[in-house]
């Protein structure tokens, strides 16, 4: 639906100025001895009113333009390709541990002697994510890294280099606590104020080890639904973690005592997989325990995000002031033409001295005849 709005409606108070030309026709008036009983041609009768209307319209158009008219663009349904992907990268201490099956010869790897076997989870994730980003040229990426608090590393933008650099710089560091829910919140905020033109995906790369509080669950659920974001969790499985499908407790990858289990279950939220399944938005989990598995997971992600997404696009408001000023300009030019055609003097006045010469000229003409 399009309708007219004004950026500065107060300017419309100047509109009565448009009545001014109706009261006063600016054409120069000259005295004439007698105009009684003149039969005027049609244009002499129509022109004054045309001029008044023109001047009035010019004024009205100018005032309207100054009030800044615009029309709402309306909403259009479009089909979007590509996806907006926010990578939420867990860089907690546990991510530096080796990937399942590659967790040997760690000391050698850290000493730089061998890189044959050991591959940390974060390194594997980083390498594969970079490749993924390079393949997906049509997508927009943003990066949030988190351990004990989320870091706004690269906002959602077309600046690919920034996102890649952000990924490369994400180093694992243990600070003892994993702020998963806040990281997800920050990732969701990336979508704030952006037109929904593509599939929105939050790609969570994490090995679990985080607790989502009950109140955070509600907030996250609302936010996910509000922004319409799909969540994909790439669960990086190390040597010691359990499969998420076996209702693994997030934040519990070391010793599971009966008490811990009871405590976690009493919170109902400890199970990340459970929580994410209940978000009300499409959710997929990929359990990855090798680099190849990573690739397969990402292929699945790209498959899921390749589908065109229908979205409602709010057309930008259309500024009508420019057109108004253009019309004003055209009308002002017409008025300028009228002004230029307007007589400034009916006839040049002859001074007494000139009159003398006229008389003398007349006399000499008489003398000749």
């Amino acid at each position: 639906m399009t309708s007219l709005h004004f950026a500065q409606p107060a300017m419309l108070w100047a509109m009565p100025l448009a009545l001014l030309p109706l009261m006063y026709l600016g054409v120069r008036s000259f005295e004439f001895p007698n105009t009684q009983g003149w039969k005027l041609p049609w244009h002499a009768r129509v022109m004054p009113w045309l001029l008044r209307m023109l001047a009035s319209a010019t004024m009205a158009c100018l005032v309207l333009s100054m009030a800044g008219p615009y029309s709402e663009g309306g909403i259009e349904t479009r089909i979007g390709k590509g996806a907006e992907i926010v990578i939420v990268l867990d860089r907690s201490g546990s991510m530096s541990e080796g990937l399942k099956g590659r967790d040997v010869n760690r000391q050698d790897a850290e000493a730089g002697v061998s890189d044959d076997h050991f591959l940390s989870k974060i390194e594997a994730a980083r390498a594969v994510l970079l490749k993924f980003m390079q393949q997906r040229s049509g997508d927009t990426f943003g990066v949030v890294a988190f351990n004990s608090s989320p870091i706004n590393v690269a906002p959602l933008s077309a600046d690919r280099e920034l996102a890649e650099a952000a990924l490369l710089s994400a180093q694992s560091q243990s600070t003892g606590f994993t702020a998963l829910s806040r990281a997800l919140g920050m990732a969701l905020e990336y979508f704030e104020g952006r037109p929904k033109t593509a599939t929105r995906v939050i790609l969570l790369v994490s090995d679990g080890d985080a607790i989502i509080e009950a109140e955070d669950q509600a907030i996250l659920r609302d936010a996910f639904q509000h922004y319409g974001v799909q969540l994909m969790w790439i669960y990086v499985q190390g040597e010691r973690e359990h499969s998420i499908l076996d209702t693994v407790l997030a934040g519990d990858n070391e010793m599971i005592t009966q008490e811990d289990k009871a405590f976690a279950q009493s919170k109902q939220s400890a199970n990340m997989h459970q929580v994410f399944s209940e978000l009300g938005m499409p959710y997929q989990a990929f359990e990855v325990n090798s680099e190849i598995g990573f690739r397969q997971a990402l292929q699945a992600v790209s498959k899921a995000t390749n589908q065109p997404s229908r979205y409602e696009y709010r057309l930008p408001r259309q500024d009508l002031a420019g057109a108004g000023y253009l019309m004003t300009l055209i009308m002002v030019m017409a008025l300028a033409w009228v002004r230029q055609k307007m007589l400034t003097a009916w006839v040049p006045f002859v001074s007494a001295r000139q009159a003398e010469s006229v008389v003398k000229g007349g006399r000499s003409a008489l003398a000749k005849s």
Partner: protein
Amino acid sequence: MRWWHKESAPGLFKGSPATHMHLPSGLVHYRLGWKPRGNQAGLVSGSSAGMGDTLRAVVPWLEYPDPRRLDVRATLRDPFEKLWVRDFKLDTAIPVIALVDSSASMGYQGVYDRKQVIARILTVLARSAYAAGDAFGMVVANADIHPKLRLPPKIHRSAPLWIAKHWPLFHPEGNTAQGLYRCIPTLPKRKSLLFLISDFHWPEPLLLGLYKSLSHHDVVPLMLRDPAESEKLPSSGFAQLQDVERGDRVFVWMNHRVQQQMQHRANDHLAWLTERSKRFGIVPHVIADDFNPQALTQYFLKRQ
């Protein structure tokens, strides 16, 4: 040659608001086709007996005992031996009176300032009248007679000065010249030369009524016309023309056709005046540019 005969009189009007008023050279020499009555000696051959150059009759000595005019032949021829004297037609002075319309259109300023043109006409007429020994008077009227611009017909040596002094009081206004009727009872009984100065944008009854009331005088209508009214109209452009008498505004988009229409209108107006005047044996004189005394003299020469 006296000062009032001179071509121009510099400094004559110094100090008066009409200082820059242009004084045209020359006099108007009016020749009349009729014999004026009256006993005041002047220049026009009249109908009463007196000093003149046209023989009127030969009369007995007792009737006109002037030995200078003794007709020797007639006296010798008379068997009764009476003395006879030649009697001539008196060269008579006549009253010259200017009736000036002062309705608003007489203040029109086109190429020429009409007020100045009228002042020139009056000045020249006053000088010409004095040079011929004639009385000069003037009446200015619109709806009523202007009391301060009224000069009774007398032989005024200083009439041009009087005009120069009083002319700043001439403020044309109103849309009628009906007041000219009011001066008719005050005009001389004997036939006089009347100059009716106006642009004659008059209703027909006023023109015909005035002609009828003035029918025992010799009326010379001096019609004022400005080049800005007819000949020198602009050929293109927009303008509004305001009727000075009625205040109506007319929008005109000047082009060749409109120009011609306006010229035709002016010519029609002149034709109208000429035709109406002809009914009373009157011929109007058009002053289309500035006033030229010689043209008026020519008019008198052509008239009969």
